[in-house]
């Protein structure tokens, strides 16, 4: 009764092809991880072990400035758990074994269910979304919001990524977090994250998506600051939270505008009403899209709100893999595709998406060139790759954007988990010798390939994939983005529009050029990461070198699976000029969802560039990628590196600019944070607040005095009460009588 489907409510209309199949169980998808959250949370609360964070003093933290990103002063404490656990072996949680079963199992079960639903969907080939409404959530005024889920090809793809990659990362975490005293707490947060992410993706209207959107933000905050007793980690969590608030403001304004002008917030109804209610290219739809974009830049770490993501690396590495690489940060891309019917009729907004994506891709890639912390390199790489996705969805290449989202989830999760495996080994070694060296600094690594061959090979696969070397997953998706952007530069709705006076066509060629440079830099910095980490002489230290070990199987097995996906994932959407797999599977799969919006952008023309042009562009992209790898191999000398503990050679001005991340954090600090603090302290707190406080206290005093006198009137004498009653009668009679 509670779970009646939309078809049943509509009554009379033909039932949706998915009703009566496994898709009826879509409500169970988020419920499974929620169950895991409840169970693990209960174990975390009621389990007898000390549930606090690991003692951070055992880890390496030579400065509290992770939030400001000063290199060398890295205050992150990843892996401190292993340290602390070693010192006091009994800290492993007593119910860890139960948590290890529940935590991954619920996500694996959700993945299995998602697979069943996907099979049903392949069989049914629905052309309209399957909507399940559960109850009316907010019936207020003209606004009626249902708690409802929407299942279509788009949400299906992302649900598979979330549950599939999520399950692998959960399994990896069993090994990585094993000795942490907060083990059940960690898994309950991780399960909760998967729950909210599924709500985000499955929501049938913007408010339900927003619930998921806020929920994943909350989980991100909780997990970044998982080892919260180190101030830097807690600060990083807060920074992420605040940066996202700015974005959420945009999301909410967009919702208000849509409701005020269309009167609905449900995706299907927006899609139906938008073309009529919002004039194409008009100021209104452009404003709505720009506010949505602001929300997306927050969640997906794009300029100007990207600053939180590098600091978010303070969380445990599997968290970085799941939340800050594979799933949550791609929510912005998902939202643009979900509201593509709006973006497609707002070319100016779409071009803005494109430009922001391109600039972010290049900007972050340059910073990635000079980072020493292995996770920071990957963080900037993530920002850069998200920029590619934004370029794609901005150019109306929605399929390419989602395609890159999927392949990126594979290889970036692999890279992060590989880095986690490296950090795990480094930390164990440093702990053994009671050294306080930074386990994440690449200057302390080198030559790890002999100690960790499995991780080494798999990370090379991921590197080749992200660099875009032909036949690896990233090649196909990045190539499709570049090809489509190039094709859109002529004869599309975008090329005829203009952006700040620049013709759209010229702008898109520029974006294409920027993306090529960013792709080249991607190859360079990823090769650099591999060279410094795995090749050349070892710099860990003589005592530690012999202690470096490959991670246990529970951690390497998920890596292997992700390695296979990173190598072969590109065949999901094989371009037509390369006939080695069924062509364009993902494109045809997503056609019912993004088809109309793509047609709007292309003005009915073909969605893709023609095969010959594609082949040429693909060749160019491959040459660029290989050139990047080659340049890095020739120019970088791992043997010349010195360990982080030794004095470093002076940096050139450009190098210093890059390693300081263009001083953006410092600029934000000067331009926004400091003035806000000064203003609020001196004017708001001392001035306005003092005045308001005085007024409030005065009101409170008056209230209290009135209350006291009211209380005093309460003498307890029945006679007094009777008199008061009579007085009341007189008053009532008086007011009534004066009306006569």
């Amino acid at each position, binding site marked *: 009764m509670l779970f009646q489907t939309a078809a049943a409510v509509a009554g009379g209309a033909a039932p949706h092809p998915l009703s009566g199949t496994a898709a009826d169980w879509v409500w169970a998808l988020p419920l499974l991880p929620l169950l895991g959250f409840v169970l693990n949370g209960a174990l975390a609360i009621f389990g007898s072990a000390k549930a606090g964070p690991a003692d951070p003093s055992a880890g390496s933290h030579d400065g509290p400035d992770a939030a400001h990103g000063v290199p060398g002063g890295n205050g992150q404490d990843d892996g401190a758990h292993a340290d602390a656990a070693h010192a006091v072996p009994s800290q492993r949680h007593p119910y860890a074994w139960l948590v290890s079963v529940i935590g991954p199992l619920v996500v694996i079960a959700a993945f299995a269910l998602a697979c069943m639903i996907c099979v049903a969907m392949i069989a049914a080939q629905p052309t309209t979304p399957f909507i399940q409404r559960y109850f009316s959530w907010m*019936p207020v*005024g*003209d606004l009626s919001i249902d708690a409802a889920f929407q299942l279509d090809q788009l949400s299906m793809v992302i649900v598979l990524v979330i549950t599939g990659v999520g399950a692998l990362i959960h399994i990896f975490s069993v090994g990585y977090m094993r000795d942490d005293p907060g083990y059940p707490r960690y898994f309950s947060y991780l399960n909760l994250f998967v729950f909210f992410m599924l709500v985000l993706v499955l929501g049938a209207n913007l408010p339900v998506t927003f619930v998921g959107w806020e929920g994943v933000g909350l989980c991100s905050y909780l997990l970044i600051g998982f080892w919260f007793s180190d101030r830097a980690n807690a600060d990083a969590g807060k920074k992420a939270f605040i940066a996202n608030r700015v974005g959420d403001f945009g999301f909410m304004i967009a919702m208000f505008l849509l409701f005020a002008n269309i009167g609905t917030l449900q995706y299907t109804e927006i899609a139906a009403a938008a073309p009529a209610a919002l004039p194409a290219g008009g100021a209104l739809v452009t404003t709505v899209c720009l506010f949505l974009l602001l929300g997306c830049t927050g969640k997906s770490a794009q300029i100007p709100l990207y600053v939180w993501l590098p600091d978010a690396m303070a969380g445990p590495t599997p968290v970085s893999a799941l939340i800050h690489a594979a799933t949550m940060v791609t929510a912005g891309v998902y939202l643009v595709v979900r509201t593509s019917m709006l973006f497609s009729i707002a070319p100016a907004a779409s071009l803005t998406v494109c430009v922001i994506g391109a600039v972010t891709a290049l900007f972050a890639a340059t910073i990635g060139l000079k980072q020493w912390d292995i996770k920071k390199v990957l963080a900037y790489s993530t920002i850069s790759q998200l920029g590619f996705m934004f370029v794609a969805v901005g150019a109306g290449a929605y399929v390419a954007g989602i395609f890159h989202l999927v392949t990126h989830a594979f290889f970036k999760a692999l890279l992060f988990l590989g880095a986690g495996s490296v950090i795990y080994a480094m930390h164990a070694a440093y702990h053994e010798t009671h050294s306080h060296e930074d386990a994440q600094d690449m200057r302390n690594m080198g030559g790890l390939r002999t100690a960790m061959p499995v991780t080494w090979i798999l990370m090379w696969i991921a590197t080749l994939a992200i660099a875009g070397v032909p036949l690896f997953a990233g090649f196909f998706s990045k190539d499709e983005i570049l090809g489509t952007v190039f094709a859109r530069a002529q004869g599309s709705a975008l090329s005829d529009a203009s952006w700040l006076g620049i013709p759209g066509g010229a702008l898109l060629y520029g974006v294409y050029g920027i993306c090529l440079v960013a792709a080249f830099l991607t190859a360079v910095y990823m090769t650099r990461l591999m060279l410094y980490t795995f090749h050349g002489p070892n710099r860990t230290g003589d005592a530690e070198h012999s202690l470096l070990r490959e991670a246990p199987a529970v951690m390497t097995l998920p890596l292997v699976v992700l390695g296979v996906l990173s190598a072969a994932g590109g065949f999901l959407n094989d371009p037509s000029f390369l006939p080695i797999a069924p062509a364009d599977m993902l494109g045809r799969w997503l056609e019912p969802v993004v088809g109309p919006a793509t047609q709007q952008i292309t003005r009915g023309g073909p969605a893709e560039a023609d095969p010959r042009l594609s082949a040429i562009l693909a060749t160019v992209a491959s040459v660029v990628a290989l050139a990047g790898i080659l340049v890095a191999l020739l120019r970088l000398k791992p043997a010349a590196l010195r360990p982080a503990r030794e004095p470093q050679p002076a940096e050139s001005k450009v190098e210093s600019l890059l390693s300081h991340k263009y001083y953006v954090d410092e600029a934000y600090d000067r331009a926004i944070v400091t003035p806000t603090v000064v203003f609020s302290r001196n004017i708001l707190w001392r001035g306005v607040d003092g005045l308001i406080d005085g007024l409030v206290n005065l009101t409170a005093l008056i209230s*209290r005095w009135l209350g006291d006198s009211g209380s005093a009137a*309460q003498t307890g004498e*029945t006679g007094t009460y009777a008199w008061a009653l009579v007085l*009341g009668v007189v008053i009532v009679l008086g007011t009534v009588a004066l*009306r006569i």
Partner: protein
Amino acid sequence: MSGGSVHQALSVAVSQAVPLPGSPAAVAPTFDLHIPSQLTLALGPDIVLFVGTTVLMLWAAWRPDSREHQSNVGRASLALVFVTMAAVVGYDLAHVTAGPGVIAVDAFRWASDLIFLAASAGTIALSIDYNAREGILAAESHVMVLFATSGMMLLAAGRDLMIIFLGIELMSVAVYILAGFNRRSARSAEGALKYFLLGAFSTGFLLYGIALIYGATGSTNLTVIGDRIHLYSLAGTPLVTVGVALILVGFAFKIAAVPFHMWAPDVYEGAPTPITGFMAAAVKAAAFAAFLRVWLEAFGDVVYQWHDAMWFLAILTMLAGNVVALVQRNIKRMLAYSSIAQAGYVLVGVVAGTTLGASAFLFFLAAYTLATLGAFAVIVALGDAGETQLDIGDYAGLWTTRPWLAAAMTACMLSLLGFPIFGGIGFLAKWYMLQAALEASYFGDAKPQVELAVMIVVTSVISAGYYLRLVTIMFMRPVRADGGAAGNAAPRAGHLTQWVVGVSVALLLALGLAPAYLVSWTAKSAPVIANRPTYLLPSSAIPPR
């Protein structure tokens, strides 16, 4: 927000809600109330309760007082309440109706009955544990609750001033006894006597008002009164005006509206805690149900006369209740003033005079009843024998010693405050009441009660001062050296008490997340306002405020 938008939402909610079994297709019986047998049938659930209560009374008196007997009679009373509830739900689902007559057979009656019955079930469950702890062995206390509930059900049913008077007396006499039930407590006896004296005094006014109205219109039937006042343009004649004013006084006393509230704090403080909860929740709700029906069905045309008095009452009640609650140290006394303040909010729904106001009224009563019951249940759960630890400071550090009870109390406080999500339906109740105030109208003429809406908001801010203070004390203060209620080593609350706490808080929170069912229920149960043609009313009938 466009006009009537909540109305639309409510009707949307009705149409979208799960279809109720026994939908219109089924033939709904209509009772002819002039035929005695049919009148008896129309009173079905009331008779079930009344007969059952009488039998239980005999059983309670038959055996000597003992712990077991007290508990057994209590459990039997609980069962009787549930049976009556089932009967009420059955009548509701059958969609029975009735022709003109002394009682009403409509959804409003069933909805009100369910609220009263839920409150009395909670009260009886609490009393079983409470009486055992306090050594009150008289089994009759549960039966008295049932008698009071019978009176309440008559109040909800009555469409005749005499029936309503009967209901008020039946309810009041039983509650007078209950208030003084703990004979070993001087406070309890004192409160009961005061309540009785002042109650009798106010009943005099009520009865005099009824007599004047009868003199003016020649009838005690609400529908007939309304028709005749309209037909013969009696509104404004001295007899009707004074009659309405005196009836208003009578009801204002029962709902403890300021300045007729003086009895409430003393009586609430003195009465046994479950009974205090009963008075704050059920007795007040019952008086309100009758009040609303009388006002909408009989005195709609007299709005020009009663509007200002009612308006002032609402303002005064909200303001005085909340402000005086700020300085209370005793938790029962604080809740007494809080319940006075809440009555002020409900009065706004009556002043609004629309179907929307009436459904907001029902929604608010449901939310208020749940939160009040939950709060008093927590007090019972924390009490020691003799209830010596009722100071707010005694609850310091409750979160560290009894986290579930602290959380439950917090939910109730936040609900009474009208806080979203963690306060459950409390927020929506206040929200709908605000909407009702802003979309008030009299017989078709829009008449937004902006001042009342502003007053709701302002006094809600004041109320945060004492609701949140209790929360901060429970969560942020350490347990006192002498322990207080938080450090009480007394045995854990009885199972029934735990059930009352759990069920009321769970309902409060669950309905807050998915309010659509309650919204549709209250919307369909709002009483139908007598639809006299509006064009006959001069436009000046609307007070120019």
